[in-house]
């Protein structure tokens, strides 16, 4: 009998962490004829309250064959062959006669992202350098942002006071270095990883909780980590490709960033004016419109197209401190467009993305997508799932929602974005 690629989705909706872990592993591997070559594992943050993630992983290892390479972490939600979920756990187990796998880990990503990226990429490089397979893939999965708690203020997305903001900007830097709460710095890690592994096609995702940005965990074999990057490296004779689409459109609203701060993470001035009042003027929003409560329902839906090393970087504006806008990645100054996106645009972005892969007969697929898309589409996320089912038919796919995602391929370079769909399809070229 000719051995074939086997890819199976595991899933659990049980609340108890250990039972859920067991069920995810059982459902993923029960129909495999060979032990899995790797296991990707994603779970929502709920298990923290129902036994904890160590118990969750213990449940996985009650079932999963020893030494199976495993990476993953907490995510906001996921889509697989069975539906869309913002609670539960899902895994992807793959077994193939023509695949080599390595996993890597790097720690202290928020304090020293470059070192973490290097450590993690070296593990992949060293373990796959003798692989005979020329097609190489990497999942770069990184601890996402965690809102720092500012003394006297708490964990806020919007700080109106100028005095507190000045203090908070300094505190953010300290918090990042000392207690590793703050930006995920996934863009820096991704860039560093690409520099080290330029021949790999990559998909970037970040670990999150239920959209609150309070905590997240990464899984590396039998360990639970925080502030870590975990990599899954694959060398295979399967054809594979990656692509990012986002569906965001430029409006006729433009501005120029004239002053950056906080190591190029903060837009301090636009059009030579304090950034926030000028942005409100451009959007025709009244002063005082933005509050901690309205942030979630307003500004997140007006992404902006920034620039980084000549590339367009569409991102949301998740944090405002008095007159400065914080963005999730390092940016350059210059001209910026305000973007707009609708639910229909988001669904079209998925269709456009899958259209690109029509020349591949898929064996399995992996996706990262922005958690704001899940928040935006809500139960209409099922439309996305139906599109994915149409493309993959009976083949397995797993999409996880994160906060900062992207792709890289040697031919398409880095795409880092928010509000995007990022696809990796493994299969056989048909044309």
């Amino acid at each position, binding site marked *: 009998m000719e051995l074939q690629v086997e890819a199976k989705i595991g899933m659990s909706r049980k609340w108890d962490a250990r039972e859920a872990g067991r069920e995810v592993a059982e459902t993923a591997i029960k129909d495999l004829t060979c032990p899995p070559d790797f296991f990707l594992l994603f779970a929502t943050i709920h298990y923290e309250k129902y036994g904890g993630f160590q118990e969750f992983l213990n449940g996985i290892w009650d079932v999963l064959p020893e030494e199976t390479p495993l990476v993953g972490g907490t995510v*906001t939600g996921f889509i697989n062959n*069975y539906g869309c979920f913002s*609670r539960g756990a899902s895994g992807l187990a793959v077994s193939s006669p023509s695949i080599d796998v390595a996993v890597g880990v790097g720690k202290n990503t928020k304090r020293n992202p470059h070192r973490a990226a290097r450590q993690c990429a070296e593990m992949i490089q060293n373990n796959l350098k003798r692989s005979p397979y020329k097609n190489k893939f990497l999942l770069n999965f990184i601890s996402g942002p965690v809102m720092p708690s500012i003394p006297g203020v708490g964990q806020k997305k919007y700080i109106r006071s100028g005095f507190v903001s000045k203090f908070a900007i300094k505190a953010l830097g300290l918090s990042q270095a000392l207690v590793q709460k703050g930006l995920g710095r996934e863009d820096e890690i991704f860039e560093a990883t690409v520099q080290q592994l330029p021949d790999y096609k990559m998909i970037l995702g970040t670990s999150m909780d*239920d*959209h609150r940005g309070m905590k997240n965990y990464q899984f590396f074999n039998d360990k639970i980590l925080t502030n870590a990057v975990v990599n899954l490296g694959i060398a295979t004779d399967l054809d594979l490709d990656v692509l990012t689409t986002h569906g965001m459109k430029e409006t006729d609203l433009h501005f120029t960033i004239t002053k950056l701060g906080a190591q190029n993470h903060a837009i301090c001035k636009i059009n030579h004016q304090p950034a926030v009042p000028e942005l409100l003027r451009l959007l025709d929003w009244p002063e005082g419109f933005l509050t901690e409560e309205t942030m979630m329902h307003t500004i997140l839906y007006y992404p902006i197209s920034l620039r980084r090393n000549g590339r367009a970087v569409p991102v949301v504006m998740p944090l405002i401190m008095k007159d400065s806008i914080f963005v999730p990645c390092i940016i350059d100054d210059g001209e910026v467009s305000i973007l707009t996106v609708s639910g229909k645009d988001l669904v079209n972005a998925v269709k456009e993305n899958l259209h690109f892969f029509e020349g591949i007969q898929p064996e399995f697929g992996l996706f990262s997508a922005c958690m704001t898309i899940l*928040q935006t589409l*809500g139960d209409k996320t099922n439309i996305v799932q139906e599109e994915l089912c149409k493309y993959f038919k009976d083949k397995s796919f797993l999409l996880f929602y994160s906060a900062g995602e992207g792709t890289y391929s040697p031919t398409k370079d880095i795409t880092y974005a928010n509000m995007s769909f990022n696809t990796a399809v493994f299969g056989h070229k048909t044309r």
Partner: protein
Amino acid sequence: MKDDPIAEVLDDLMRLDDILACMVARRNMISVMPSSEGFKPEVNQIWDNIHRAMDDVFGVIGAYSQIGLGEMEFRLQDYEVLFYVFPDTENALVAIVPALANKGLLEVELENARREILRIMEGPKKESTPKNNTEQVLTASG
């Protein structure tokens, strides 16, 4: 009500932090409530007002569900009430959530619950009705 599989679906919803209350209901009648802990206490103070408003909304659902009304919602003070209508009926899955909850994430699970309840209603004699899609997972080839 203890062994009611629909009540078990509602129990699952009640475990989510931001679901303050949920039920399967129609005008002037709550058909199924969660079996375990009931509603979260903060709903009690506003329940009478919400209940009255719900009955008015069910009047609209009754009038329009036959022509495809699928969802409704209203906001009352600091709460939102979401209605997921069972197609072609006057019944809906109803959830009360805080007005500023991450509604998109909740909507995903409310839709899953509606589908699960529909499956239960369509096959009431099927003993092996999957709780939380597990059976579906076990039988489908991923």
